[in-house]
């Protein structure tokens, strides 16, 4: 997947001279995950810039660049380090268009690794998308395959508004897929139905799509036909696709790696309760990380939802 991300950067930089890449170690080093590998050689140091080690600088500078003709694609090295940037994201990036009544806008993409599962050090395994989804005026996107990473990143760069682009680290190298480098974007603001089914709807995103698809293969053997929806754009939520699916299956299980408390899953459950309650044949179930600090790697696989927890949650919806 990480190669697909580099490809999307390359395509868009080739075709839009206003696209610039900034971040820590994105230049000669090509990013700590190699997501910007080769870009500085190809496009030069003006368009691919290593910033000083300062996340507020990266986000604040992106605001200035974006309001004045450039399209910054900025990398925050790990999601756990995004917090100094939040002041700029919350108070400026997300509000620029609104508070100037459209006079200025912020077409920025902030990419950041998302989630755990790769034995990384402390503060390198967080999935705090819910914080970002709570900010009005920005989109939050999370791809779950190389092809979707490519197409959604292109769409994010082309979007006239700020996009937070969360890249599941567990998929960077684990998932391989041929991606045609044809510059074709995928749509934002819509879910992707990865698998059709008739008995239960599973909604998930990021690295958890892989776990969910594994669980669903097992459920098949038990005669349960599951529909799997990759949320992809976490904010705004494409609730219509989910409601249509729930109308068909009558059951909903939401799977996310992030902690449960006030998670994106809670918003989906609330929307389904508001608009699709009478389609439900069983209570909505959530399978999530625990409401604890993400543990260091000795316990990280105990923290993250696994196949068995997903299967059990689905079976519970049939027991109710």
């Amino acid at each position, binding site marked *: 997947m990480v190669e697909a991300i580099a490809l999307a950067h390359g395509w868009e930089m080739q075709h839009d001279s206003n696209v610039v890449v900034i971040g*820590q*170690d994105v*230049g*000669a*080093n*090509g990013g*700590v995950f190699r997501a910007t590998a080769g870009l500085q050689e190809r496009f030069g140091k003006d368009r691919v810039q*290593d910033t*000083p*080690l*300062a*996340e*507020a*600088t990266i986000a604040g500078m992106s605001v200035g660049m974006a309001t004045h003709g450039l399209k910054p694609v900025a990398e925050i090295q790990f999601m*756990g*380090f995004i*917090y*100094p940037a939040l002041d700029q994201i919350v108070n400026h990036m997300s509000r620029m268009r609104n508070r100037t009544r459209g006079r200025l806008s912020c077409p920025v993409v902030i990419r950041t690794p998302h989630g755990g599962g790769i*034995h*990384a*050090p*402390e*503060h*390198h395994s967080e999935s705090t998308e819910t914080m970002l989804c709570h900010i009005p005026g920005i989109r939050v996107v999370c791809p779950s395959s190389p092809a979707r990473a490519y197409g959604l990143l292109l769409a994010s760069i082309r979007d006239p508004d700020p996009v937070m682009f969360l890249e599941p680290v567990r998929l960077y190298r684990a998932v391989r897929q041929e991606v045609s480098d044809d510059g074709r974007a995928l749509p934002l603001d819509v879910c992707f139905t990865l698998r059709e089914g008739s008995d239960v709807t599973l909604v998930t995103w990021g690295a958890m799509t892989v776990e969910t698809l594994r669980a669903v293969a097992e459920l098949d053997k038990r005669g349960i036909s599951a529909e799997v929806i990759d949320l992809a754009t976490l904010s705004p939520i494409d609730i219509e696709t989910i409601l249509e699916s729930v109308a068909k299956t009558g059951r909903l299980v939401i799977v996310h790696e992030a902690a*449960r408390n006030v998670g994106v899953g809670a918003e989906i459950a609330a929307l389904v309760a508001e608009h699709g309650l009478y389609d439900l044949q069983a209570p909505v179930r959530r399978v999530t990380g*625990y*409401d*604890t*600090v993400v*543990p*260091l*790697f*000795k*316990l*990280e*696989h*105990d*923290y993250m939802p*696994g*196949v*068995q*927890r997903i299967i059990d949650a689905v079976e519970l919806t049939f027991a109710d």
Partner: protein
Amino acid sequence: MKTVAEFKIQYRQILSPGGELVAPLPAFASDHAEVLRMYRAMTLVRVFDTKSVNLQRTGQLGTYPSSLGHEAAHVGIGAAMRPEDILAPVYREIGTQLWRGVTMAEILTYWGGDESGNDFAVPRQDFAWCVPIATQTLHAAGAAMAFKVRNEPRCALAYIGDGGTSEGAFYEALNLAGARALPVVFVIVNNGWAISVPVAAQTAAQTLAQKAIAAGIPGVQVDGNDVFAVREVVGEALENARRGAGPALIEALTYRLSDHTTADDASRYRCAQEVKDAWQLEPLLRLREYLSRARVWDADQERAWLEECALKVDAAVAEYAARPKPSTDAMFDHLFASLPGHLHEQRLTARKYGAKSSGH
């Protein structure tokens, strides 16, 4: 126009790269036993560090940040501090931590993915490793504020890297410490590289020590490969802070001889000649040279000590390896002083699936 203020930054070196004295010997260094203690500590750090990198390479440790080349800075600072002072480390300063009583097994436990490595038996009041860059400088300032308010004659010492000086939190800490004359010493270990970004790309400033000037506090540069100079400069700053004269900023010039961490490959962005040159200045070389000239250390003693280091490190690795995987309860047990209700339920869920999850 008239000049309203002028500043200068001084550089301190006592031991040249060749092991010769280029400045008067500090009082502590007149005691050979004390110098040998520092030398042995620096050697042990290097043996342990090399072993840690190997453990990572063989899948027995997580990502690990080597401290290769930083031994003089780290041990010199450890030796300059008093036990009652507190340390706010970044994540590389094992030389200081070992001097202060943190064990090698604890260090391995943390980098082996288990938070219990942060639960130092000694020193109980030091901060744990700090991965979010520069945030620890404010913690040190806060601890110093506590010492000041409670009228305790103690100091805080915060480390930061050269890259970290680009973060806002660093300037905020300097500013606060200066404005309140806090008993805190900030040490920038300038090893030349913030992962792939060289200092010249972080700042146009001629020195990092001069970052002190805007905060109104003293700033000084020291040869960070010279354990005598580091200990003396940091010791003076700590004593000044302890007697109420306020904070200081020290820039220790050294070189990151290793990759940033075991997850990094510095050959992608750093030329081999630069690293080769830096090896000529490394800290063990000059101190060993100094000690052998003083006829208090010879090749036999060196060999015997290295063997002893290897035994100590092996014992620590064995202790680390014998620690069982933490139970899933460990995620919950230290989250609050008393666990809120809904987490009891989650703790049970984690137990249920934790037991099953090995290998999923």
